[in-house]
């Protein structure tokens, strides 16, 4: 039995998803009527163990190997811990680093893997829920396996807060250094550039619905007319239409302005992760089922090319000829 959850940290900080994993792990352990073990690999493991000691955690295993994430070290350490504890479920964050080792562990140990899980229910068999087709549908799966790996979507479970009384144990992993095929040399932050979108009170944000680089000035003009700052969703930056420092979302910046106006943005989970803390969210999008409306306070279900020029006029500006 046992549920084993693996924490995540980066550059000295425990990432929020680690405490969300504790909540998800406790929920699953209750379903399975078993213990919850949490593992932390590398860095200041004792400090991390202190932070991971939340209500519902039975045992914390510290693996004192390396400073930062290295998938080879994680794969070996987690596999050895897995062999020791023989857990029913292994929970890993559905993060860039989680997806850099969980599939390898699952494949190597012959465990069934379900990624990006947003909910689960029941224990035998466990039923997991995930999204597909860009979040347009949810699907449920029965996991007909004695042991499995789930990667848990960040921000779906609340972080565990109440302090706990877990036992902390140092786990001596036997890491084969010669088998490590990657070397992490450092980190780089995306350049700040001319503007810091995290400081803005009002953001006018543009997405795929703008269709063409030549249409960007329309949104720039609106931002100007409002005295707001221009930001965007990922595809705009991928296309090179706006610089990287304008990107809102999981891989870009997390913003919390007073007003966030999302124009032609469908509201994929990665984008929402970066702006859901905004005070007031306004969406302009042609698709009434777009997920952005799930978190929007106000909406206009119409063509942005009709609405935005009218808005610019409302504020005394002049819409550019496109």
């Amino acid at each position, binding site marked *: 039995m046992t549920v084993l959850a693996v924490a995540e940290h980066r550059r000295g900080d425990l990432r929020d998803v680690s405490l969300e994993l504790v909540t998800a792990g406790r929920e699953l352990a209750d379903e399975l009527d078993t213990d919850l073990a949490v593992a932390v690999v590398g860095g200041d493991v004792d400090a991390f163990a202190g932070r991971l000691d939340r209500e519902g955690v039975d045992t914390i295993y510290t693996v004192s190997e390396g400073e930062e994430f290295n998938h080879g070290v994680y794969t070996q350490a987690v596999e050895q811990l897995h062999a020791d504890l023989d857990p029913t479920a292994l929970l890993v964050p559905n993060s860039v680093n989680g997806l850099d080792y969980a599939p390898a562990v699952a494949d190597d140990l012959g465990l069934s893997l379900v*990624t990006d899980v947003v909910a689960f229910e029941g224990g035998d068999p466990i039923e997991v829920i*995930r999204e597909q*087709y*860009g979040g347009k*549908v949810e699907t449920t799966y029965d996991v007909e*396996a004695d042991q499995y790996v789930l990667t848990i979507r960040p921000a779906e479970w609340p972080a565990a807060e109440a302090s706990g009384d877990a036992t902390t144990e140092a786990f001596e992993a036997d890491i084969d250094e010669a088998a490590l095929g990657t070397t992490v040399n450092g980190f780089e932050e995306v350049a700040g550039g001319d503007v810091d979108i995290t400081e803005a*009170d009002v953001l006018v944000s543009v997405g795929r619905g703008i269709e063409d680089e030549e249409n960007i000035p329309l949104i720039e003009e609106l931002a100007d007319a409002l005295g707001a700052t221009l930001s965007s969703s990922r595809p705009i930056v991928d296309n090179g239409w706006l610089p990287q420092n304008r990107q809102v979302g999981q891989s870009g910046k997390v913003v919390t302005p007073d007003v966030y106006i999302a124009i032609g943005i469908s509201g994929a989970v990665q984008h929402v992760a970066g702006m859901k803390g905004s005070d007031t969210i306004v969406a302009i999008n042609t698709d009434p089922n777009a997920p952005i409306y799930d978190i*929007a306070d106000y909406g206009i279900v119409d063509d942005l090319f009709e*609405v935005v020029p009218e808005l610019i006029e409302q504020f005394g500006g002049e819409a550019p000829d496109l």
Partner: protein
Amino acid sequence: MKILVTVKEVAEVDDEFEIDGLDIAEGSLEYDLNEWDDYAIEEAVTISEARDDVEVVTVTVGPERAEETIRMALAKGADRAVRVWDDAIEDAQFLDVDAKAELLGAVAAEEEPDLVLSGVQAGDDSNGATGVALAETIGFEWAAVVNQLDLDADAGVASVHRELEGGIEELTDVDLPAVLTIQTGINEPRYASLRGIRQAQRKPLEVRSLEDLGLDPSVVESPLERTSMYEPTSESDATVWQGSADETAESLASLLREKGVIEG
């Protein structure tokens, strides 16, 4: 050197769609090259253009319909293609990560590439795991979510940036042979030229069955069983303004004035 690129034809869902049993109704789907794979193809072709000894081979698990997508990859500069299909695959409810890794791995074992490029994820299933599972299956090194790649084939090292959350990139050296999962934005995928499209018709596209690959039909079996598919219940409590564009714009303008975004 040889670069193997995994290419998937993905199903995209119309804004208005219907669910038929455990999947989207066929009539609500359109098929296209997976967005992430487009960047992987571009990365491979760019490498092949910079050197004169690089062969780019694509591998796809998909039905005959997928050949249109595969030809598109060939038109963009891949040299030849392998398509894996079989009645057993056709009959499977879906392919899980392990099955995909086994199928792609069998092709990789035959091709013996130096580098495998795959997309970070497929737009329809969004597993985000097949590339790393493939690496483990074939005993390659790997890196997930690569948004910059410098290849030193002679030294046998790929120096990559991995795109972590929050605008942080990890700088990592990866020993070859390796599987790299390619993130969007790493390059600017080209459009296929007319000449490329013509040439693509003559490039080799080989179809392989499970038997051809020495795989047992059980490879597509999964401990996962899809039990339902449904539209998520909308959690929307947004105030949606109705009316013509000038009316809705006026409503929004009033709100912004109320919020003090703009004076007067």
